[in-house]
């Protein structure tokens, strides 16, 4: 389609949801141009992969040489403060608590926005490189998805909204982390909010959000029963 050239510099911003920065002419163009729409989708995908790759990279322990005292002071400060009060934050970031990590990233904005469960599932599969189940939850509208790699786990979060506009996040942990042959729901309080861990036929999911606890429990029950799974992705 002609005219793509002038619109392409705005596609990354469009993909990032910065629509107020994108000229109206570009929004109109992309709506009618499959090539530009695909490139915008590619930018979203690349953003998700980039985020996952940086966060998947383990923090190295740099070699310690002789350093100037401001640098050493910095090192000491970091150690002392970390020991004094930041253990929880660090643990959530690099430790083994996958539930806390999932609950934390779930509050970030979706990297891919859509109200269509099928296209969200497709995006999740491409972003994570693993088969995903398409999940429809009664009374909830899909809002979008994001993919993160935290705490040694591939976390795919699909966000839904209730009719009242409250948010429910369903974070699927890497299938390899799912306990096989088990089901059940456990509740935890993380930073003052209830989070539910669901072992479902579709895998292990962490449910969080701003919706009332009753809505979170209802979502957990639906997932645990496997009722929300419409179809199984390619295996």
């Amino acid at each position, binding site marked *: 389609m002609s005219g*793509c*050239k002038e619109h*392409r*510099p*705005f596609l*990354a*911003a469009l993909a*990032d949801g*910065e629509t107020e*920065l994108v000229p109206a002419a570009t929004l109109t163009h992309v709506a009618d141009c499959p*090539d530009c729409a*695909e*490139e915008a*989708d*590619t*930018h979203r*995908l*690349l*953003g*998700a*992969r*980039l*985020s*996952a*790759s*940086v*966060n998947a*990279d383990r*923090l*190295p322990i*740099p*070699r310690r040489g002789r*350093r100037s*005292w*401001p*640098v*050493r*002071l*910095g*090192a*000491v*400060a*970091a*150690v*002392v*403060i*970390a020991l*004094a*009060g*930041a253990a*929880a*934050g*660090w643990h959530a*970031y*690099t430790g083994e608590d996958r539930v806390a990590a999932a609950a934390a990233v779930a509050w*970030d*904005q979706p990297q891919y926005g859509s109200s269509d469960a099928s296209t969200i599932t497709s995006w999740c599969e*491409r972003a994570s*490189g693993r088969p995903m189940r398409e999940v429809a939850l009664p009374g909830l509208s899909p809002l979008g998805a994001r993919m993160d*790699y935290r705490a040694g786990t591939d976390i795919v979060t699909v966000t839904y909204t209730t009719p009242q506009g409250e948010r429910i996040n369903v974070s699927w942990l890497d299938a390899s982390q799912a306990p096989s042959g088990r089901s059940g729901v456990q509740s935890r309080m993380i930073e003052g909010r209830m989070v539910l861990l669901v072992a479902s036929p579709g895998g292990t999911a962490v449910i969080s959000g701003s919706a009332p606890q009753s809505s979170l429990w209802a979502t957990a029950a639906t997932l645990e029963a496997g009722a929300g799974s419409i179809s199984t992705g390619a295996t």
Partner: protein
Amino acid sequence: MHTEVSDDHIYAELVADAAGLDEGAIAEQIAALQPRLFRFAWSLSGDPEEAADLAQETVLRALGSQWQFTPGTNLKAWLFRILRNLYLSRRRSASAHAETVLFDDLDANLGLADCQANPVEQAVIVKARLEDVLAAFRRLPALYAGPLHLTAVEGLTYAETARILDIPIGTVMSRVYRGRRLLLTRLAERAL
């Protein structure tokens, strides 16, 4: 009797004192963000050793100037801005022209001035291993890696990114776009 007290011990006490002030809660939050600071520093500097130093020095500076932070505002953005300023300061010390080299528009030098996007192959991204994506990202100039890190990895808005990097929001948009284009080009090269 003379007792030798190591510098590290004195500094540790100073920091512990600082952490024990009313601002202790902020101190905890600052320290908790150190892994993120490290990753951002690595994206800017391309060197894990320098990144560790930058992150640590940022924590220290932040602890020493907590009074400058306004509670209720974005602590992460504040810390990233301190780190970015430290990074630039070091570069200026290393070279009088460092800022020009790093933050002037290098598009022409990178061959991107006339970059016309070919239809992008999503397959390149889908097939790329995360380590390949990371390797390609680590080779990006700070000019592009900084905005890309803040938007894609930290999920900050373009406006927040512009404030941290002290560049116009339109420049953020341009650098994010061109950084991604460059990343795609390099991933495609690796895939060949």
